[in-house]
């Protein structure tokens, strides 16, 4: 019973706060806008605090692996080490200090870029397999369109762009700016419908991700 009451209070809190923020989109009344701004500022602070909580959780997960020497505990040790060193250096010498920037440019930047390079191969492998995997007309259309766009995007071998290349560029632009724009607009509208329904379910307390 008590649990029920508490969950109802939290649901009412979420609804109340959400209502002010939501009305702020449509109504220009001063007090609504003030409440909205205040709640948004609190939310921004809370999101940053939640990141710290999440990082503590991340550290806890890997610390547990190391202490229990679970499978892959050595990798967890590497993670804890890199996390601690980066955090300490960036806090002591500030994130814009030379030490933090050195770590950023030496580790994070190249590692993320290399992962993006790996993505290129992953996407091409998936594209290669798609028609064989799905065996339907839509996947054929998907790969055919991708092929045409790549042909119209990539540089042409040889000394100068010929008329065929120009035609391919125009066709690519036509596909992307007319056909894809129409499809994208339909998808965006559909996604907006789904997002609205999802948000309203939370505001109406049908979904309570914050638990009870």
């Amino acid at each position, binding site marked *: 019973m008590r649990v029920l009451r508490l969950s109802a209070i939290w649901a009412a809190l979420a609804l109340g706060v959400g209502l002010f923020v939501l009305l702020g989109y449509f109504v220009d009344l001063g007090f609504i806008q003030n409440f909205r701004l205040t709640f948004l500022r609190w939310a921004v602070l809370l999101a940053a605090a939640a990141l710290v909580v999440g990082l503590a959780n991340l550290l806890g997960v890997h610390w547990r692996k190391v202490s229990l020497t679970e499978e892959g505990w050595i990798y967890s040790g590497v993670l804890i080490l890199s996390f601690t060193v980066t955090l300490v250096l960036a806090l002591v010498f500030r994130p814009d200090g030379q030490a933090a920037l050195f770590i950023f440019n030496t580790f994070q930047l190249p590692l993320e870029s290399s992962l993006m390079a790996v993505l290129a191969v992953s996407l091409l492998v998936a594209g290669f397999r798609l028609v064989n995997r799905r065996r339907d007309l839509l996947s054929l259309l998907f790969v055919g369109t991708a092929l045409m766009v790549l042909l119209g995007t990539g540089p042409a071998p040889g000394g100068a762009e010929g008329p065929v290349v120009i035609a391919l560029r125009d066709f690519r632009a036509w596909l992307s700016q007319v056909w894809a724009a129409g499809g994208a607009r339909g998808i965006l509208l559909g996604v907006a419908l*789904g997002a609205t329904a999802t948000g309203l379910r939370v505001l109406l307390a049908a979904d309570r991700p914050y638990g009870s």
Partner: protein
Amino acid sequence: MTVGGLQGLVVLAVFVALMVGFLAVNQRWPAHFRRIPAYEALRQAIERAVEAGERVHVSLGTGSVIGPESAPALAGLAALTRIARATSISDRPVVVTTGDGAMAILARDSLRSTYQEVGASELYEPTSGRLLGATPLSYAAGLPAVLANERVSVHVLSGAFGVEAGLAADFGERAGLFVIGGSDDVQAQALFYAVAQHPLIGEEVFASGAYLEVGTMHTASLRAQDFVRFGLIVLILLGVIVRTLEGPL
């Protein structure tokens, strides 16, 4: 109040009214939805995972809770409660990862309250809902270890993703897992379509609650979506006719 504000309020009011209305008539007028093979396959994959003592991994993406991109993750959290119920009889309960700190907390809260409801509080572990990486690509970088070490066999991606969606799905595909992916980001959807075994297209990711039978409100909201969809189509057509009558291009 501006005209846009008024229009927005009307849309909002119509949506809420439709959701409540469909909720009221749900018993008398049951809904019939089209097949979404990905969700049918997901049901079977989860049951197979439970039978095999393997784990279901739910990824809530890299979007922030306080941003508009949190919508698919919120839908994923609703689906998570259902998946957690279904896997609560498994030796290995569901594990949830995300790239946002607040979303990780919500995942843990959802798991805790779900396990309490099914009388399996002992299944809850603070590490079962975790932040995997603080940036989108570092989140993707953390996935291979989770998929390999946690004995995952079902890889559910429901959240905000960017290009990292391709990597997140590919890591699962390479490990030979059942991969289902949906996002609000159109580019991520395209990458899921290419890479994932069972892509969720467009707004299908938001329908997980209705298709996994989380609750009547999910069914009602899906019907409300369809109602507004048709309204929108009619309005656009009317607008085109009016403008066409007004004058040339």
